[in-house]
């Protein structure tokens, strides 16, 4: 009943606080500080810091840029759908587009070299999830997201779409090859 009734004193603010409540508030406050400062700390010492470099674009403009990139640097074709394998120059720009239900093209990179990746979507929201690295980026139409990547081990890596995008979402797997 006491929670339904008004406080017994008109000025209740100065009532002494119970030790257990003070302890609880202190613990919660300290934990809040820990979580708050963990964010900039990990941003500085963490090995994976994706920047926020972003530009406005259009699906048509981005598709034209990607096509020009593919036309210039294709080295061969692969797979049952004859995807172009594109080997950009070291230190250069890499363009990958997301569309229903495709990551295009296949990229071939050199180990130890740094590349600038440009991602955008032609239709709606997709997820760029580079496996097995913990690198995940949301890719949306009309925005070109740019980040820097340096592969440090040779191999074949998958790009999974980790944002549900329709009936073919589970088939939307791209490929990045890293050679020595």
């Amino acid at each position, binding site marked *: *009943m006491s929670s339904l*009734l*008004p406080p017994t004193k008109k000025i209740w*603010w100065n009532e002494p606080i119970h030790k257990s409540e003070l302890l609880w508030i202190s613990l919660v406050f300290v934990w809040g500080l820990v979580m708050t400062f963990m964010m900039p700390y990990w941003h500085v010492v963490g090995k994976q810091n994706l920047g926020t470099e*972003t530009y406005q674009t259009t699906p048509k*403009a981005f598709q034209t840029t990607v096509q020009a990139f593919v036309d210039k640097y294709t080295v061969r074709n692969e797979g049952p759908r004859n995807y172009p394998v594109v080997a950009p120059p070291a230190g250069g720009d890499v363009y990958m587009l997301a569309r229903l239900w495709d990551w295009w093209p296949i990229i071939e990179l050199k180990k130890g070299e740094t590349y600038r990746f440009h991602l955008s979507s032609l239709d709606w929201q997709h997820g760029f999830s580079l496996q097995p690295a913990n690198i995940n980026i949301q890719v949306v139409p009309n925005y070109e997201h740019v980040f820097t990547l340096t592969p440090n081990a040779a191999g074949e890596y998958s790009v999974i779409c980790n944002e549900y995008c329709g009936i073919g979402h589970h088939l939307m797997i791209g490929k990045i090859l890293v050679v020595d």
Partner: protein
Amino acid sequence: MRARDDLSYFKLELHKVKSMSDNDQGDSGQVPMMQKLLDNPFLLLFIGVASPAVLYLGWGIMEIVMIPAR
């Protein structure tokens, strides 16, 4: 003795609390600012809606409209 129903019991308790607070010597003086804030549910509601609206929505939209064109 007449049995009391819930409403009568509530009225009796409310009367007791009112008399206690009327007689309390420590009730003189200005109400502290924090108490004024916490005693005002509509002000708290406004702060609870306005803070995330400004800090998340407003700030987020400002950042998005500032993205440069290619």
